């Protein structure tokens, strides 16, 4: 049976079902439903909820919980995610699994509280200092908010890497029926690298500081190997009506929802369009887009920003096809009609 809930609440339910042991957060719109909901649910479940004094502190509390091998998460929105980058870089270096949720709002700076996709670069190109990647998941509906939150912890632990769910104020706030179809996870094992007291084993330490000559270089090579493995194994994407398309729209998250409607509208207007939607932004489906560019000669990246993912689409296409962009930022929403206009001019 499905239940009508907000995206932000579905995300909480997914994390709880996955065995989330601890949540650390700080208020910021448009993600406030998450700490509010978890402040009740987590305490009722005898799990950990802490409202931290800042996003910095919240992210570092996640780091602390993560070193002990338990499932931990934080959530925020764009300006708050900027503050969390310190701990995120450390967690990437220390190879700690955790879930970080970015319910994006308009930027730069304090921006506004409307949905946006302005943090694509920040999420997939690093964000903090150093050469690192997060696994970045991009839900486009409330059901996926639930499912991706649930699945993120297994992914994070499999690769010892922080996972980010990159969503936005629209998906966070909108209500849709959700099928809570995942089983409750209980009795999760503490991994064999975690700090849980050195009983019957030598002491462990977790760190990103590697001062001995060559150690950091080696560590970075190992991280890159891991990212390569993730790129080989974990790419997820979805296609819609692409087989006979003259133009392929590339879009993620809420922009993909709008684009899907635009595809239907365009086809009614006699324009053959398809949709390619990455579900993982890192790893990015570069290989798949590259393959498509052998057959399809026109790509249009639709985003709620001024052209971020389009750079990765262009890199994947690598000159083999025409790539154009349509988008707006700062809370502006691209409409189906605007996409249709763009498509008409395209051909």
């Amino acid at each position: 049976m499905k239940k009508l809930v907000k995206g932000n609440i579905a995300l909480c339910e997914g994390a709880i079902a996955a065995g989330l042991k601890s949540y650390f957060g700080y208020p910021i719109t448009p993600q406030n439903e998450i700490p509010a909901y978890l402040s009740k649910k987590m305490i009722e479940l005898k799990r950990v909820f802490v409202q931290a004094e800042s996003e910095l502190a919240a992210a570092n509390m996640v780091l602390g919980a993560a070193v002990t091998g338990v499932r931990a998460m934080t959530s925020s929105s764009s300006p708050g995610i900027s503050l969390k980058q310190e701990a995120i870089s450390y967690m990437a270096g220390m190879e700690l699994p955790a879930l970080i949720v970015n319910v994006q709002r308009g930027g730069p700076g304090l921006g506004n509280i409307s949905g946006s996709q302005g943090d694509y670069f920040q999420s997939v190109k690093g964000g903090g200092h150093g050469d690192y990647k997060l696994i970045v998941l991009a839900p486009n509906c409330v059901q996926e908010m639930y499912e991706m939150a649930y699945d993120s912890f297994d992914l994070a632990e499999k690769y010892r890497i922080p996972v980010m769910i990159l969503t936005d104020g629209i998906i966070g706030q909108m209500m849709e029926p959700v099928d809570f179809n995942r089983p409750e996870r209980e009795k999760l094992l503490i991994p064999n690298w975690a700090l849980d007291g050195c009983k019957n084993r030598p002491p462990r330490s977790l760190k990103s500081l590697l001062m001995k000559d060559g150690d950091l270089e080696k560590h970075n090579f190992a991280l890159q190997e891991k990212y390569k493995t993730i790129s080989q194994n974990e790419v997820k994407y979805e296609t819609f009506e692409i087989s006979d398309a003259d133009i392929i729209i590339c879009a993620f998250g809420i922009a993909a929802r709008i684009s899907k409607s635009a595809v239907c509208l365009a086809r009614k207007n006699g324009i053959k369009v398809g949709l390619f939607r990455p579900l993982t932004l890192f790893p990015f489906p570069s290989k798949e887009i590259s393959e498509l560019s052998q057959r399809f000669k026109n790509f249009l990246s639709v985003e709620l920003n001024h052209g971020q993912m389009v750079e990765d689409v262009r890199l994947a296409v690598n000159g083999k096809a025409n790539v154009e962009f349509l988008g707006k930022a700062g809370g502006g929403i691209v409409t189906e009609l605007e996409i249709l206009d763009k498509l008409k001019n395209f051909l």
Partner: protein
Amino acid sequence: MNKILSKPESLKDVSLSYCPGCGHGIIHRLIAECVDELHLREKTIAVAPVGCAVFAYDYFNFDVTEAPHGRPPAVATGIKRTNPDKFVFTYQGDGDIAAIGMSETIHAANRGENITVIFVNNANYGMTGGQMAPTTLIGQITQTTPFGRDPKRDGYPIKLCELLATLDGTTYLERVSVFNPQNIIKAKKAIKKAFQCQIDEKGFSLIEVISQCPVDWSMSPLEAIRWVEEVFIKSFPLGVIKDKIDEK
């Protein structure tokens, strides 16, 4: 003849990276002795700072994690809240705890987190070569106060224990020093009491250890301990600043 005093089990048998005469090694040993005596070694998760003690995980013979500069109280909060049965302490310097990490310090203290903080105050940033710290004394010359710390330009030394004493969340706060054997014995007693405070689930405790930093003070080790005794502790008086253990 029997061996009556030797390296505690909670210290690894390794050389320390600290300068000759530095107080960190003494404080490490006091912590290790207390951990051993209270049988905490196998349930300890310590948090190392950024600063001279950043390599603490190479010296302590129990689990230690790194934390970003100033964030050990937040990291320790994450550890302790998810693992209330573990023994959790942070080891922090003056810059870590009272400059970049002041917010984390105050709020962990105010929440009454059941953790112990060992705060090593040596009145300067040791690792980066001796810049002004929040606890640098008025008139003290450092790399970034070449004319002496001027309150008009640089503000005043922060007395962290007194500041934290105003918060209802704090349970035990004491300032000690390690410049001579008598004070080292007192310092150990204070650390042990703070550890016991956590074991008894009485909440937040912090021990501020006034420590010597001969090299960055441009002094010999003996000059440095004399300066601690004659000058430093005049600005940072030793003693119990707050003890609410019996009330919690």
